[in-house]
Each structure stands twice: as C-alpha cells, then as structure tokens.
C-alpha cells in the first residue's frame, strides 16, 4: 500500500512523466539542422532523386515508377504490357490529373526537388560553396528540368517551412521553371569550379546545355557542353541493398513484365527492335507481359537491379553540339559529331540524308538511341513539335492502340489532381508541347 501511495503521489506531482514516450525509429527535423548533418542531407537528396528519376523496387506511393519509366511510356520507348489502367492511360496518351501513377511520379519528383532545395538551404547556412552544395544544387536543377520537360506548363513549387507551415507556390511557366534550373546550375558550376570538382562541373555543364536546348538557345547550349569530355558520366546509382534502391527500370521491365520494348509504336515511334542497334539491347521474353496478351520484349540496358542510370553524359554533350551545328547549318559538323560517337562502338558512319527534315529526323533518332530510357525522349518529342514545327500526330504514337482503341492527344503529364489542395493552383497553364 505504501508503494502504491508513493506511486500515486509521484504521478500527482508530475503526470507529464507518465506521458513521456520515446520515438527511436525516426529523425527529428532538428537533428538535420546542423553542419554535421549535411552529408546525410546530401544523401537524402540523392535518394529521393533516385526514386523520382529511375524509380525503385518497392511498391509504396503508387509504385515509384520514376520519370524514366513514365516518360518512356508516354513516348515511344515502351508499350504497356500489363493491366494497371492508369499506366495504360499514359501509354495511350489519355491522362487525367487524377491518374494514380502520375500522382505518384509528380509527388516523387516534388519530394526530390524539395529535398534538394532544403539541402541547398542548409549548405548555404552551414557550409556554402562546397562540393556538396554544388551537387545538391545540380540535383535540384535537374528536378526542375524534368518538370519542365515532362509536365505541362504551370507546375507550382510549394515548400514546408521550418515551422512546418505550407507555403503555397504559384504555378510556373515552363520558361520560368527552366530559368530556375539554369540559375541553380550556374551556382553549382561556380562552386564545383572553385572546389576543382570536374565531375560536378561537367554535371552542371551538361545540365546547362540541356536547359538552354529547351529554351531554344542552341549556340549557348553547345557552348555550355563544350568543356565536357565525351567519356563523362554522372549516374544515379542503384543497389541490391534494399528494394527502394533497386533500379526501377529493371523492376518494371525485367522483374515484372510491365513495359515492353515496342517496334515503331503508333506508327511514329522508332524501330527499337528491328534497328538491331547495340545502344538499345533487347530480348524477346518468349512470353506475354503481365496482361497475358502483349508479346513481351525485355529491354537489355538495365538487366540487373543494381545497374546505374545515367543522368548526364559526355555523349549528350556531343549530341547538344551536333544539334547546335545542325541549327547553324553546318551539316558536316553535325554529321561529324554524330559519327564520332558511333565509331567507337562499331556503328557505321551516317551519311547526309539530304534534307533539313531528314537531318532533324536523323538527329532525334540518334538522340533516341543514345539516350534510350534516360528521360530524354518525351522532351525530345515535345521539342520536335515546339521547336521544329512538327505536328504532334507525326511524332508521338498515334492511330490504333495495340490493345484496341485509338491513341489520345496528350503530349505531357498534367499536374497531379492532389495539387488542388494548393489554393494558388487552378490547373495547368498549357498542356501543349
């Protein structure tokens, strides 16, 4: 009884003691708000970007398909060979803002962008101008770039401030988004140069070239890319360590027969199979996809779960230069740049196809094969419409869909319907190319 009395008296004096609980499984935000946490924050940036870019192997948050898979599905890099209707909606180019897979990839890319911005802010506060700062800025810039290339114009960028309050973002036009990316890459380049980190400088160079290409500044793009050696690669790495770290492209094509390599999808697509091109290896699975119907062709570029996915390469830098040469009317430089890339892997030199349109086709075909499944193709198809004056029905898959019905007319992803919780957001500004 005495013990009970003592216990009761103790509680009466300080009941909060009884309400104290421990939470050992997660990190309090305050633990990340210090200099020592910067490497961890940088890893956070890379981890969230991996999920957003090459996807993951777990199935949370709608599947973590990643931008490479989703943009490949909307363009001609994949056909749908499974049963999930939302992803079929992407393949058939009929995408509503409520599309569950789009919601997933929009969220993943937003989280990557927000994490990169947070990391940059923390570097700015505790260790500005370092290599980590440069890398965080560059990854953030690529997040903005992927929004610009793959989503409609009008993507907002909100943030959670340190007090946990949502600061709602205004919708940004594509040009505004690209300008933000460029500014970040400028800073990233400056820091990388100061720190003498050539790899990070090259990452920023390629990023700047890609942004400027999207803005139609071909000469500027070529200038940005010029310093990058052809052998350069900055890759987003995957790992067998956990399902989250698995390569999401492998997951949806090898582990799960979801997305198949097509042959000239919708009439306008590239002949990935018949080209027999070593840059796009594939294999007939000898079985249908998960839908039990579509003959399945497995991509061979990412044959294992831990294969890395290129984000920026010296090859892309040369392609940017080739495009700038074509824009400048220098066919020999254009072809020379393309052939210089082909020769080391044993591909025959390309001849001049003779017309401007044919040269453009050749350029984008080469870009397609070199950059297959790296989240470039959708942006390229849009540029063909926007910058080269092609009709969208001549570059995107069109006509009869392989599961019946007709292709729709979407050329990008809408902003997720969940963004309606942002009072400043009223829908895409422009869903055109």
């Amino acid at each position: 009884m005495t013990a009970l009395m003592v216990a009761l008296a103790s509680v009466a004096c300080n009941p909060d003691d009884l309400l104290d609980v421990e939470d050992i499984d997660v990190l309090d935000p305050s633990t990340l708000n210090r200099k020592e946490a910067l490497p961890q924050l940088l890893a956070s940036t890379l981890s969230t970007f991996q999920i957003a870019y090459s996807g993951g192997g777990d199935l949370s948050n709608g599947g973590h398909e990643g931008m490479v898979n989703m943009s490949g599905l909307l363009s001609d890099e994949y056909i749908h060979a499974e049963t999930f209707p939302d992803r079929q909606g992407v393949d058939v180019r009929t995408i509503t803002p409520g599309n569950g897979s789009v919601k997933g990839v929009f969220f993943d890319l937003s989280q990557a962008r927000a994490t990169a911005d947070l990391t940059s802010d923390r570097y700015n506060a505790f260790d500005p101008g370092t290599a980590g700062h440069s890398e965080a800025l560059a990854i953030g810039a690529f997040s903005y770039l992927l929004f610009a290339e793959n989503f409609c114009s009008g993507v907002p960028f909100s943030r959670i401030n340190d007090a946990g309050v949502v600061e709602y973002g205004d919708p940004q036009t594509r040009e505004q988004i690209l300008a933000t990316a460029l500014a970040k890459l400028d800073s990233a380049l400056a820091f990388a140069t100061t720190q003498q980190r050539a790899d990070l400088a090259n990452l920023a160079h390629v990023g700047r070239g890609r942004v400027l290409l999207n803005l139609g500044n071909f000469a500027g793009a070529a200038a940005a890319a010029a310093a990058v050696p052809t052998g350069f690669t900055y890759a987003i790495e995957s790992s067998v360590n956990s399902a989250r770290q698995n390569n999401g492209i492998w997951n949806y094509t090898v582990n799960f027969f979801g997305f198949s390599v097509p042959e000239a999808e919708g009439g306008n697509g590239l002949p990935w199979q018949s080209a027999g091109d070593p840059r796009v290896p594939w294999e007939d699975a000898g079985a249908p996809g998960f839908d039990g119907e579509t003959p399945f062709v497995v991509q061979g570029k990412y044959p294992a779960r831990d294969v890395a996915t290129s984000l920026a390469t010296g090859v892309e830098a040369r392609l940017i230069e080739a495009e700038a040469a074509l824009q400048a009317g220098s066919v020999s430089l254009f072809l020379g740049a393309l052939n210089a890339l082909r020769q080391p892997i044993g591909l025959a030199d390309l001849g001049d196809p003779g017309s401007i349109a044919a040269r453009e086709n050749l350029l984008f075909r080469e870009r397609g094969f070199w950059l297959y499944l790296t989240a470039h193709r959708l942006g390229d198809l849009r540029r063909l419409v926007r910058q080269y004056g092609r009709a969208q029905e001549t570059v995107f898959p069109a006509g009869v869909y392989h599961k019946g019905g007709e292709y729709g007319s979407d050329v990008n992803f809408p902003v997720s319907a969940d963004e309606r919780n942002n009072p400043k957001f009223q829908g895409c500004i422009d869903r055109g190319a």
Partner: protein
Amino acid sequence: MHRTFRLLTAVGALGLAWPAVAAAQTGTISGRVIDRATRAPIPEAQILIVGTQRGARTDDSGQYRLGNVPAGTVRVRALRLGYEAAVTTVQVSAGQTGTADFALQATVARLDEVVVAATGEMERRRETGNSVASINADSVPKTVVNNVSDLLSSRAPSVVVTTTSGTTGGGSRVRIRGSNSVSLTNEPIIVIDGVRANADPGGTTIGVGGQNPTRLDDLNPADIDNIEIIKGPAAAALYGTAAANGVVQITTKRGRAGRTQWAVYADVGQLSEVTAYPANYQQIGTTPDGLNRVSRCALLLQGAGFCVPMADSLRAYNPLEDNSVFVNGFREQYGLSALGGNNLVQYYLGGDYNREHGVYANNQSRRVGLRANVTGELAPNFNVGVRTGYHSHRLELPQNDNNDQGPLGNGLLGRDPIDGPNGGYLSFPKAVYEQILTHQSVDRLVGSLDARWAPQSWLTLNGVTGLDFASRTDQALTPPNLIPPPDRRATGNATSNPYSLYTYTTNLNATATYRMATELEAATSLGGQYVGEFVRGTQAFGEGVAGGTGSVGGTTSGFAITSQNTEVITLGGYLQQRFSWRDRLFLSAALRGDDNSAFGQDFKFIYYPAVSLSWVIGEESFFPQSDWVSSLRLRSSYGQSGQRPGFRNAETFFTAVAVKHEGVDVVGAALGPNVGNPTLKPERSAEYEVGLDVGFLRDRISLEATYYDKTTEDALIQRNLPPSSGAATRFENLGKVTNTGFELMLNAHVFDWQDLQFDLAVAGATNRNRLVRLGAGVDTIFFGLGANNGDFIQRHAEGQPLGGYWQRRILGYEDANADGIIGPEEVELDDAASYLGQPLPTRELSVTPTVTFLRYFRVSGLLNYRGGFKVYNSTAQFRCAVFLNCREANDKSVGLAEQARAMASARANFGLDASDAGYIEDGSFWKLRELSVTALAPRRWANRLGVSDLSLTLSGRNLATWTDYTGFDPEINFNGTSNFSTAEFLTQPLVRYFTARVNIGW
C-alpha cells in the same frame, strides 16, 4: 490539467488510505434463490444490499451468504439474467444471521439485468439512460461460432460485424452505429475483464493480398461468459479518449461456490467451398486484314474493329472447377473446464484446442487456450480476483485478393490451357500456390488483478490492473526456383517479423453511496485510468534463399531491415454523480478528462461530459396496470467521447533511407509521409439517444427501441497537402461526421406449451452516415481501387456517406449498328461522376428463432439481412473489361446490358471517358448464417453414464444467401479489415461449415 490530475490522484490515494474502521455492530444475511415456477435453485444470482455496492452470488445450490452487514433493517435485492428482480427486507442483528430467500419469476424483460459500468461497479439496466447490448455467450451454440467475431455478429442492433473472406484465420470489420472517423480507425475498443485489449484489425505485418487476422479472434469463445456492447459516446464518456467507436466489454467465466463442475466438449466438422466459379472464355480471331492471329478477340475488340472472330472459336475453361486448387477443409475443437469453490474462493479453469483447416492446402489455424480465473474474499469487505488467459495461435494464410500469387485470381483471370503452360491459371501452375507460405505465431497473455474494498458501508473502492501482452512473429517464405526468372522472387525470399505488443491498464475508482432523503439515494464516483500501448517490432527480409532453409539467415541478398517502436499513453480521470429516486427515476452526470501522449504539443487536455436519465414509468402508481403493457421505461442520455490521434500523427519527422553514392551505400533521410501539427487534438464525438423499453403480455415480450444521433466534430482528416510541397499529408481537426439511426430489439417468449416452446429474438437497426464537412480548402479524398485513369472508385465527399462509391452513371446503350455488339460509342455516360451508394450496410435485421420440443430437442437459427449498401464487383470488372475473359465479354448470346457495363469500363482504351458504374451493385442480402439442432440426453440417461449433462449439437454456418448481387458474396472485401476501402476483388468467398459437437458435464 496538471492541477486536475493532482486533485484526482490525491483524492484517490486518500480513499485508498482511508482507515478501515471495522463496523462494531454487524451481522450476516444468508438465503436461497429459486425459480418460482420450477422451484429449481438459481446459481449465479446476484444479491445486493440496496443503496450500496455490497453483494454476493449464489452457488450452484442457489445459496448465498453475505457477511459484515451493519445491524438494522436492510433491503436486499436479488438479480439474475432472465428473471425479474426481487427485493425483500431483512432485520440484521449484531452477531446474528438474518434470512432472505427469493423465488424469482422468469421474464424476457431485461430491466434488472446487471451490466458492468465504466467505473467497474455493477449497475442495473434501469439505472442508465442508454442502451447496452448484451450477449450471453452460453446462449449461442458454440458449434456455430468459430471465433469472437462470429459471436458478436448479427446479435445486437447496430453492431455490424463483417467477415471479409472465407479464409480461415481472416479477420472481420466491426462497426457500431456507423463510422465516425475519416482517417482514424472506426473499430471499437475491446476490454477484457476490465483491461484494455489489443484488437488490432490489421494484425499482421505480412501482406497476403488483402486478408489479415484480427487479434480479437485470438480469444476462445468458450471462455467468455458475457459480452456487453457500449455503443457510443452517450454511454462511453467515462471510457474517455478511445471510446468514440464504442466499447466491447468481455467478461470471462468465473467460478462459483459449490462442488466442482466439469465440462468437456469435442467438436468436429467440415468446411466446404460452395461457390460456383465462372469459366474463363476466350474467342480466337484475326486482325481485320486476316494476317495475324489474335488470341483474345473479345466482343469489345470486335466492336471496335480491332479483330475479326474466327468461326466456332469461342472456348471456355474453368480451372477452379476442372483443375482445382481447393481442398476439403475441416475443423476440430476440444475443451475441458472446471469451476467451483466455496464462499471464500471460487475458480474457473479451462483449456481448449482448436484446429481449422481452410479450403487451401496452406491455410490453417491452430489455437490453444488456457484460462484460470480465481476470485476470493480476503475479508468480508475485501474481494480480489486474478484472471489470466493464455492464447496460442498458429496461423497459415494463403495468398489471394489483389495479388499475382493468389490462386483465386490466377484461376479467375486464366485462359484456356491450350494457350498457356499453367493448366488454365494465369501466371503460375496450381502446384505453386500452396508452396508460398505465410505463418503467424502468436503467444498472448491477458491477465488482470482486480480488487474491491468496502472500508465503510457507504464507500467502495475498486481497481483493476492488468496487461495484454502478445508475442507475435510473422514469417513468410517463397522457396527458391518456385517462381521462374527473371522475376526477383525466383531466388526465393524469406521474411521474419517478430513483434511484442503490450497494453497496460490501471483503473482506480471510489464510489460513495448515501441517502439524501427518504426516497432519494445518491452515489458519487471518482476515478482515474492509465492506459499504455506499446509496440516493439523488427522486420527482416532477404532474398536468395538457400535451398532447404526457410530462415532469413539463409538469404544472400536484397536485405531489408526496419524496426517499429511506438508508444501511446493515455491518462484520464473522472467524476460521476448519480441520483436514484424511489428506484424508478435515475439521473446521472459525469465528466471525464484526458491527456494523451499523441496529442499535439500545444494541446494538453480534453473533457468529456455525460448525462443520463432513466425513468421506469411503468412502476409509477399513476401508470395504468395492464397485462398488455406490463412494464415501461423511458430513457435518454447524452455524452461525449473521443479518439486520439495515432502515434506520430502530430509530429514532423524524417525516416532513414539508403542510397548508393560513389559506389557506397550511405544513409540519408526522407521526409516522413506526414507533416506534424502541434495543435492536434482528439476527435470529439457527441451523441444523444432516446429510447424506451416496453414489456408486453406480462413481460413475455420485451421491446427496446432507441434513436441515436451522433456528431463527430474536430474529425481528424489526413488531408492531402499539395504534393508540390514534397510532403504528402497532415492530420488536422477539420471534419464533421454525423450518424443517426434507429435500433430495435425484440425478445419474445412466444409460447410455452408442455412439449413445445418457441422463443424469438429480433434485432434491427438503421444507420445514416454523412460527411458534413471535410474542412476548408480540403479537396475530396479519393481512394479504393484505381480505375479509369485515376477516377478512384471511392471518395470521402462532403454531403455524402464516408467512403461512398462514385462513378459516371451509364445513361444508356444501344446497338446502333445492329451487330450484336456494344461498341465504345454505343454506351452513353454521364458527364461527371456522381454518388452511387455506400459500402457499409445502412439497414440490418437479424431474426433468431429457438424452438424447444419434447423437452430434449432444441432448434435455433440466425437469419440475417443487410441492405442499403453497394459493393464494387471488381472481380467481374477486371475479368470483363481488362482481361476480357468473362462470358459476357466474349459471348454475344449473353445480352447487351452485360456487354454495356463491360464496354463502359473499357472505353478508356478507346480514348473515351469510362465508368465502372455497372459493376457497383446492390449488395443487399439475406443470409441463413446459423442453424443448429441440439439433442439433450435425459438426465437419467446421462446419470447411467456417470455424468450429469450430455448433449449433441449438429450445426451449419453460412448455409444460404439470397441476393441480387452477381458477384461471389456481397459481404467479402479484398482489402480485409481496412477502414473504408471495399470491393470484391479475387477474394475467397465465405465457406460453409457443418459441425457436430458433444458436450458432457459432471
């Protein structure tokens, strides 16, 4: 808040420390209680000294003894379920024994039935203004119930228990008076012998596609004496921050004074898969140019001009019938119990073994239960009880539902074996499924220590402290080389997730009773409660299983390890004041206050008031005496209760994530799915109810009618944040949800002839659920199965029931080109989605007739109706509109209406708006859930065998269903016990049970 706690605890401590002043002048009361008609002794009758909490129970000879009674004139009340209460006056002299005998009249009226109040004290129904449902476990033949969920199902108004599949070991949804919460659980809390119990409806960490066990079903129904269901805040205010969804209060069996009574039972039976599964159809065709073969030239593809069928190419194959994965299920159950004791110590000891094998080779459940309940009288004014139950549960669950490894899904989505290597199954041949193993092992101890001390005749202190501890290990194994490469599962994988689950409860209460005037009695109660809920778990997964081992330790790659540690603590205190006028008019008012570790840091304390009025007007002198209306009570109550946020709901946090950088795996952190809210507080549900209890024809018929109106304010909404913020959700107190309804409970002793008796129980209820407000700036919440380009099938939308089904309506269809096929343009859909119905029943009616004939035979049944709800028949939608293998997708002779609903769903393939409205079907049904026949051996026969009781019961469960629903069963759900997500999707339908049981007592 802190001051309040100090006051409560200090007063409580003072009460406990009150010096036990021995009554100098006391005597004893003893007597016997018998049935007035049969003169048979009545065991387990409660004897109470009127105006106090002092009491005793009769032994198996009907005798009782009540010591330490203050000398003087004492009024004594005898109570027993099924009998009218009786009161007598006895003169107690110091050191002497007074006698008070009772002859009780049988009745179906329940005015004086005793229930357990939140204070831990006993109270009669007439004393409370709210309805409390009560299920006497012994009144339900054990052969027809497999678990506690079955025991609860369809026996009390507004208690809707939905068995979500026919999987052995699968769980059930429990909803009482509708759903209150948008984002938190809607399951009631479970209290076992005064101790909060773990009743996690999602009681596993390994997904098998949708189904999951619930911890409620760990318990052995044979150990249960009684279940009381406190339905909502009007009655549950004193249960505090957790009880908004109601309280299921389980009282286990206890001993009683008298000789030891043994009981043994043996029960065997079979489970049958009785669903008629449809065949898979396939039409072969060619492309319109005739150049290429199309192996799935379904009608909608023909209608769209995509293919041309080949003559006589329609094929059908039914793998689930012709190459079946099902096995014959069986059940066996054995139990032994003993109860007895003397006036000082009583005991109940019980043990049971239960094994059930489901209709899949890898689906079985084994339960072992042991119980020891001991109650004793340490002093005439001091009683203690120790109640312990050990439960061992070993469960194997099959894969099914939304799962590519499920045999049912692979069978229903398969194709003619000519076109595939899997014997008609979609992805894997039938031998694969039974080799994918999922085990759950639970060892659980629920124990409590309770005490009651009456230091003064007017003061009673009671308390209970206890623990519900479960050691649970979930394990799964996919053997290597079972699933062909390149699938990641080809190398096999193993999972081992050991968890420890702790729920601690301590309740303390002091009640003082006193007489304020000659006919006015009062009782004041003061109490406090501590509830701590702790989870400690680790999850380990690995791939690359070494042959011959099922251990995670034998895996070689793909490792994933995580831990889950959660702690939630509730501290509460209450004050209750009750008045009783002439034992006819009862008024009580109460206030409870709570603090909780899961509240936001800026929110500290919440109060829940309650008031209750009960008037037994039928006993008033002015009330006309009549055989037609023999008793009448009017009642009303109002109360509030709450529901706490979940662990971490109020916090912003980051979770550790790994990433490979420059060739090395390093650790980063990702923002958790939820952004914190420092002002987060519990949901507050307020409810009032009014009702009446009427006895007709000398109480041969009793009727309880209740209307309730419940409003949940500050409803916690897990609102979607704009994803552009990089954060997913935040819990906010924004919403408002209402539930209203009527309840009816009729018990009738219809006739009682010498060789034929007929009793009837009817329980009915309605529920009207509405989401009144979701919150400013919160967009409609979409969820459920995704379909049609993100137009999810269910929504939480303002002005409609929670979780309602929404789709574009099918306005019409016409075979305009008269080709016998509905093409994509030949179905007309509405422009926008509209509300089509809700997934949970709004009307329920249960009819339980019992016929006893020739004294030794008893037949009882349970016929149950549920209506006013819809079910998304996603199985049919998936087969007809996605896999195109149902008959109506391939056979023109089936009819245009069926084609139209498939085409409406498949129109997205043709760049058109689509709708699954045709597959959202009326789920109303009647079910013959239970039927049993019991033969009681005449006592002389039993005696010849050396026993006192002998009976044989034959019974069946899930015997018949009548419904317009075209799927397998309108009750099942692909997502198990999920809060709202509801559909039939490749889910195992309920199976039929036939069992036989022998009961022997001596």
